[in-house]
């Protein structure tokens, strides 16, 4: 008798939780998993949350961090035109609760600075967050890397970038190339070589999956830029020789200028505009970031 009622109950249990699954998804459809649309609008300040945490700041910081990532990732999927107004406040609260959470600063450095559709397009906020991180973690040279990088890439302020890298180089455990980078910035700011090196450093030192992906995307972008430059040089040579722009890449290949059809870093063929001789990335590219 016991066995029968247990099996009956387990079957009921199974049906029940299947129903729960569907209902939960419906509920999420109406209000979002965190009822984000409403709760998030009413975000209190960092110090206020800290008081309310009743000693569990570290745990609450973790929760805010998870929610910040979800806010960012989920939002992007739901609404491509979205602005990430709440990203900075959430990251700010997280770091007020737990100032030593380095990954949070690193995440903020990238996604606060990135232009839409990727990020919040506000490098000034990224700088504010990073300076806060540096103040709380003075011996972390990675943060100087990030800060210098914001000046370098998003603000194109090579003087400030160099200055920041030098600040970082002063630290006892600083990476040796910080000084080199400072020099690079002053002399060849904007140089593709320097940019690639920096993005590689960012990629290496990022722990966050999304930040890594972003770095790779930028590296691919740089690679594409380089390839396009090279291709356009070849095309120019062709024009020199034949007096006109080539019709397509096949023509270039046939005439021995190329070994084959050139593919962009994501494996999609480039487009050649026979009117202008310019090379473009195809609309069907899988690159996340496309060179201008």
């Amino acid at each position, binding site marked *: 008798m016991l066995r029968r009622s*247990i099996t009956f109950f387990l079957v009921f249990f199974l049906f*029940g*939780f299947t129903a729960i699954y569907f209902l939960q998804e419906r509920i999420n459809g*109406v209000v979002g998993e965190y009822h984000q649309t*409403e709760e998030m609008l009413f975000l209190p300040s960092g110090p206020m949350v800290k008081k309310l945490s009743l000693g569990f700041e570290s745990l609450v910081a973790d*929760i805010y961090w998870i929610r910040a990532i*979800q806010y960012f990732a989920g939002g992007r999927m739901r609404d491509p035109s979205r602005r990430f107004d709440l990203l900075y406040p959430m990251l700010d609260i997280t770091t007020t609760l737990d100032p030593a959470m380095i990954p949070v600063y690193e995440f903020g450095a990238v996604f606060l600075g990135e232009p839409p559709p990727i990020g919040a397009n506000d490098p000034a906020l990224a700088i504010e967050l990073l300076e806060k991180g540096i103040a709380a973690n003075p011996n972390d040279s990675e943060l100087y890397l990030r800060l210098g990088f914001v000046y370098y890439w998003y603000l194109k302020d090579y003087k400030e970038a160099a200055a920041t890298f030098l600040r970082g180089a002063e630290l006892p455990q600083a990476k040796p190339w910080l000084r080199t980078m400072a020099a690079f910035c002053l002399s060849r700011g904007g140089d593709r070589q320097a940019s690639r090196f920096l993005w590689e450093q960012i990629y290496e030192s990022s722990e966050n*999956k999304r930040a890594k992906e972003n770095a790779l995307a930028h590296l691919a972008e740089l690679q594409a830029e380089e390839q396009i430059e090279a291709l356009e040089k070849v095309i120019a040579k062709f024009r020199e020789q034949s007096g006109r722009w080539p019709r397509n890449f096949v023509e270039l290949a046939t005439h021995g200028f190329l070994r084959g059809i050139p593919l962009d870093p994501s494996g999609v063929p480039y487009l050649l505009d026979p009117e202008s001789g310019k090379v473009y990335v195809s609309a069907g590219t899988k690159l996340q970031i496309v060179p201008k």
Partner: protein
Amino acid sequence: MNKILAIAQNTFKEAIRDKILYSLILFALLMIGSSLILGMISINIETKVTVDVGLSSMSVIGAVIAVFIGINLVHKEVDKRTLYSILAKPVRRTEFILGKFFGLAFTLFVNLVIMAIGLVLVLAYVKGQAYSRGQVTEIHASLFVAVFLIFLQLLLITGIALVFSSFSTPTLSAMFTLALYFIGQFNADIKHFGVEAGNVAVRMITSGLYYLLPNFGNFNVIAGVSHGKPIAAALVVYDVAYSIVYLAILLSAAAMIFSQRNLK
């Protein structure tokens, strides 16, 4: 059916003749009243503070009542042996469990009504003050919807407490029920923690937990209501369905466990 009703009425009688209930209700009313003072400190958001404090107090105190009466529902009768003369009569064990549940459900309903009346009175006073200063606001119907959703939440807590009460001591039952109440506020975070962790096994476990654990976040609309935003009707419908299904699971678990028990 009549027997379930009889047991429910008896459970209700027991609850209202218990002095602890009155202390808790009084405490809740005090908290609601305290929002008058808090409101004075923060200008222009008296209404928001009143609703926030009021609804939050109702939710928490209601949960406390649900837990502390719930964990004793079965255990007290077994311990005191009052159950002997009940079960020797033509009463099924399942009927007993259901009767206990509905008795406490009704008790909670009455408590919420009392607290809601208190809140409405305080709110009317606060709004009256605001009105006299030239700010115009009305009491939204969404307030009562929020109270209803709190009621559903309390029913779930009762169900959980009842399951534990059917086989465990009051102390352990209280611990587990409160733990589930607390964890159930963070279901979404648990799930996303798993997503970020990357490990497939962890992700599967956390996803499973997301659906298995009671998701109390579904019923929490306090933030929206305090800003005067309406509550989507669809949410209420789904929440009711969710409660019914989840309660069915809980009550049948309690009934099954209890039916197998040898009473000491």
